[in-house]
């Protein structure tokens, strides 16, 4: 079964500091995308960053970057210079075999001022 594991149910970071959220996944696909989605209290599901598995270079979007280790099926998210607005539930997401997305259980990130 395809699974996504986020081992940290909750994380906390001081404003302006850096935090890393971990994720491992399992897929039988060879070329695929991986995603991190963010869900703030507003409930909206927001795409944070996307990694194309065939690219060795880690994706970066402003303060957000990933550490993608394809062989280890590891896909962690690093948030630099954390801001209060980064507080949210973060979901690591991998593709399912039928075009759907497989979500991890999420990591709730708190940002302390």
């Amino acid at each position, binding site marked *: 079964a395809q699974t996504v594991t986020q081992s940290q149910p909750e994380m906390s970071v001081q404003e302006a500091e850096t935090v890393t959220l971990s994720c491992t996944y399992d*897929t039988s*696909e060879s*070329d*695929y*995308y991986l*995603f991190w*989605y963010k*869900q703030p209290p*507003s*409930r*909206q*599901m*927001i*795409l944070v960053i*996307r990694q*194309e598995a065939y690219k060795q270079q880690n994706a970066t979007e402003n303060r957000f970057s990933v550490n993608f280790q394809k062989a280890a099926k590891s896909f962690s998210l690093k948030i630099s210079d954390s801001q209060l607005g980064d507080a949210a*539930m973060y*979901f690591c997401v991998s*593709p*399912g*075999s*039928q*075009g*759907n*997305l497989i*979500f991890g*259980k*999420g990591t709730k990130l708190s940002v302390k001022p």
Partner: protein
Amino acid sequence: DTAVSQTPKYLVTQMGNDKSIKCEQNLGHDTMYWYKQDSKKFLKIMFSYNNKELIINETVPNRFSPKSPDKAHLNLHINSLELGDSAVYFCASSQSLAGVQETQYFGPGTRLLVL
């Protein structure tokens, strides 16, 4: 402009009622999805449609019936609502059913509360 919209955003209803949630996307995408997020925030696929054709139908009670009148719309009708149906329902869309190499865009969610 809203890319994926859902109505209503909140729905409070009694057990046994029938209700519908509407979803529309203006991205020109071919594929649309319904996901359910339970009280523990876990999201799981319910249905997907590609060009109005049902592709995925996960283990969902047949009280749930999706309907796609056209490519831009995927509505979710729920009969005989039960307490366990209380959740947040998300609609999403993607360009095509390339699946593993597609980005999905989500609507704002509909919070359903069954009393």
